[in-house]
């Protein structure tokens, strides 16, 4: 199949970027989107041009490294998948595809399709952990936790931190990411210990990174590859309000 690509090219953080047209022919519809990008780069290298830089790692949909706006949708038209799990069969022959980086003031473009998502790392370092002396592994059932609760915590922990929520949000809000990281801890007894400091510190860090306000449009949940629920955001609000009222 044949594809007409309009790819965002930007030299570095401070330069102006632009869309550049490329045409690829004889593509296999069962190629993944990233294999198509590899094909493009091989062509560019053979022509003596700079390849398009993009982030990727596991290519099995679990690491959260890859992520592009494909035709104006984070990770492309297929729901609940990462870019690496999207295949060319999701597109029409001879279709024009816009490929842009995830955009947000908190995610500056480093080059082409690569963005700096270290703002997420700083949110995690501000409170996304439990302070315990790990020592030896404890007995498996020394802390009784119901299956229901572990599943709920795991649903929040499934967030892979790809940033599609921020890229999709019209306000550039990181509420879905931050709330998922707060909730997977607060649901479990180990995480309950530091719940007040955690939610306050992580929310403050989220604000310091220039993310916007959540206005509950719920677009983030729709485009999230892991389908993280927006109810996490409501629970973060609950945790935050609770911390403001009860903290000493």
């Amino acid at each position, binding site marked *: 199949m044949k594809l007409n690509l309009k790819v965002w090219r930007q030299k570095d953080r401070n330069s102006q970027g632009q869309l550049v047209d490329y045409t690829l022919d004889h593509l296999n519809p069962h190629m993944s989107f990233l294999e198509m990008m590899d094909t493009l780069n091989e062509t560019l290298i053979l022509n003596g041009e700079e390849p398009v830089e993009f982030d990727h790692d596991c290519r099995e949909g679990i690491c959260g490294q890859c992520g592009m706006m494909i035709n104006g949708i984070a990770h492309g038209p297929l729901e609940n998948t990462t870019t690496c799990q999207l295949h060319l069969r999701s597109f029409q022959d001879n279709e024009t595809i816009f490929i842009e980086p995830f955009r947000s003031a908190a995610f500056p473009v480093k080059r082409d399709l690569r963005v700096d998502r270290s703002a997420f790392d700083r949110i995690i370092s501000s409170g996304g952990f439990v302070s315990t002396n790990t020592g030896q592994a404890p007995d498996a059932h020394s802390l009784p936790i119901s299956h229901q609760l572990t599943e709920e915590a795991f649903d929040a922990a499934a967030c892979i931190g790809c940033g599609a929520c921020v890229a999709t949000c019209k306000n550039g*809000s990181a509420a879905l990411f931050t709330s998922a990281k707060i909730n997977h801890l607060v649901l479990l007894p180990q995480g309950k210990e530091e719940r007040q400091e955690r939610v306050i510190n992580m929310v403050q860090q989220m604000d310091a990174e220039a993310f916007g306000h959540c206005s509950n449009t719920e677009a983030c949940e729709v485009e999230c590859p892991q389908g993280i629920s927006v109810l996490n955001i409501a629970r973060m609000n609950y945790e935050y309000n609770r911390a403001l009222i009860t903290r000493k």
Partner: protein
Amino acid sequence: MLTTLSRKMLLCLTGLFLAFFLLIHLLGNLQLFLPAEEARLQFNWYSQFLSGNTFIKLVSYILYLSIIVHVIDALLVTIKNKKATAPYKKDSRGRASKWYSRNMGVLGTLVLIFLVIHFQNFWYVYKFGTLPLDSAGKKDLYQLVVTTFQEWWYVIIYVLSMVALCYHLIHGLHSALRTLGVFHPKYVRWFKIIGGVYAVLICTGFALMPIYIYFTTN
């Protein structure tokens, strides 16, 4: 500086108060649907009762303050949100959310413009203008309402503004409860339905008033 969550809380609390006020305002104004002469006496008595009551006066100051805080806070939230985003060359993000949830600022501005017109129509004239007296010696606000709604363009402005208010409320009420921290899936579902019904009932009720008066007095 307030955090993003506290800013939304301010927006939520003032918004919920304003939404609650709408119910009281609607219930009071239902008197307009009475037979004309009865409505005139009742409505004018009610207006004078409200303007002379100290408690209502206090509530009205909270109301004015809520409107101002809600508007300014919404403006600050919108400015920060605009700064936090960058435009896409091709943008299809709209597929994932409702148009009215993305355009609360636009809907809110329409409601604010309507409020200016609405205050000028009735509140300003009642407080600072001169009105004839009815047979009971009260200021005849009812006559002003009837005269205003005999103009078809006022009827259209009022009805369209209620459509804007309705969409603003549908998203606003649902969003406010999220901000308060209601995360239980069952209650989230219920509140979404209750909020929608509340918004539609309130706005339909208000929109019917100018329509009713236009068609019964013309």
